[in-house]
């Protein structure tokens, strides 16, 4: 099991990321999510009433977090800073590489929760609905980017490969903790 501390980004990576670096991600992810809703509406149907919930996705090793309302084609993603009090219905916290692993389905969210690598507060039913919707979606980076064909495959290979390398770097950067893969 990879725990939260072990899978956090190395300190040097965190230092080179200023808080405002995340700002352009808000409009980009909003457009991506709305595009995904047009192409695959069934993902958002699984959320039911919880599509209106405000999810605070808080990567604890980044200087910013995301406030997401996954309301299908009206979805909104905002980048928020920890210094500001962000109202939310639910907060999901953990290292970015673990959160991305749950998003792409390679890591088991329940197992990470059991081992306290990620934490959840707020409306638990909204978290359960989001987890199940993501689980069934089998999202690839190309789905979020709206890319298909060879370009989509290239994006998937590049981004997933990059994530894998990042996880290995994060793991080797903290060699004092024993790792057992899940």
């Amino acid at each position, binding site marked *: *099991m990879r725990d939260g501390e072990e899978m956090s980004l190395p300190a040097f990576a965190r230092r080179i990321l200023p808080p405002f670096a995340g700002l352009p991600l808000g409009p980009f992810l909003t457009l991506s999510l709305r595009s995904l809703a047009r192409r695959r509406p069934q993902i958002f149907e699984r959320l039911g009433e919880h599509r209106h919930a405000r999810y605070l996705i808080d990567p604890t090793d980044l200087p910013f977090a995301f406030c997401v309302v996954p309301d299908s084609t009206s979805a909104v993603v905002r980048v928020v800073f920890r210094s500001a009090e962000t109202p939310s219905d639910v907060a999901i916290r953990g290292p970015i590489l673990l959160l991305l692993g749950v998003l792409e389905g390679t890591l*088991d969210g*329940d197992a990470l929760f059991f081992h306290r690598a990620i934490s959840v*507060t707020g409306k638990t039913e909204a978290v359960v*609905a989001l*987890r199940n919707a993501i689980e069934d979606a089998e999202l690839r980076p190309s789905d979020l980017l709206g890319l298909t064909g060879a370009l989509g495959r290239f994006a998937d290979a590049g981004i997933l490969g990059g994530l894998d390398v990042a996880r290995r770097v994060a793991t080797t950067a903290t060699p004092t903790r024993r790792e057992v893969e899940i």
Partner: protein
Amino acid sequence: MTAQQRMELVCPAGTPATLRAAVTAGADAVYCGFSDDTNARNFPGLNFSPKEMAEGIRFAHGHGSKVLVAINTFARAGDTDPWRRAADTAVACDADAVIAADIAVLDHMAQNYPKTRLHLSVQAAAATPEAIGFYLEAFAVRRVVLPRVLSVQEIKALNSAIAVETEAFVFGGLCVMMEGRCHLSSYATGRSPNLNGVCSPPEAVSYDERGQATTARLAGFTIDRYDPGTPAGYPTLCKGRFTAGGKTGYLFEDPVSLNAGTMIVALREAGITALKIEGRQRGKGYVSEVVRAFRHAVDAAELGRDAVEIEGILAALSEGGRQTTGAYRKTWR
């Protein structure tokens, strides 16, 4: 069951993607349910629409696997239509079997669809030759899912006294030993697994972080408080840690998972036909890994070997990070 028959590996699926993952990982059969009160894993965002069920069954059949549809809650008096409709839809989708506990659902199936296999759900808590004999005679059930209260020796004795297939849980969440009769969730929240399909409904669950500790509550009842680095469990009262008589501990049951991976040969020799993995609420990662591990273990058992390493492989996926062989090996006796 004769010694020559191959044991069936029955695996969970909460979503179409998980069904495909289970089939791909080597499940002989997958069990799943509709998105309503008729199945015992009625959680937000989980389960199948009729269209998804039909597509899932086509996928499974195309890959040589079966699909067993769980309609295993108890029908509400005066509102039995959802259960009748679920049974009709399962048959229309070409399900290989329906898993049921309520005698109204069993009767509806037996009367209208005698060619569709009926499996008696664990929720029926049938653990004696007399009880099983009743379900066999009244509804012609073809298989009984055994409650997790029996030792291997007791299963062997039971199988020698009945003329129906038996299925045993081998991995996953472990209910306190009151299969189908637990009232803890309904006492605290007004909703229960047996009637609403949810134990500890998520809208009644909260996790509060104060300082370094996380407190889990169910409908206002504090279940447990976890220090940093301490493994957590599902937020059910039966796995709660309470103080009573001046002592603090798990009053009902420790937060551990069942893992009978080392007892497959013994279960086979006790006459078990099918091995069931719990976890329809779990994700693809869990299902893929557990099914793959048990596929190897069952194949090894067919050659007379137990797969000891299965305990280490799956420990990280377990509730509370710990595992037990449960009642199968009753060391307290």
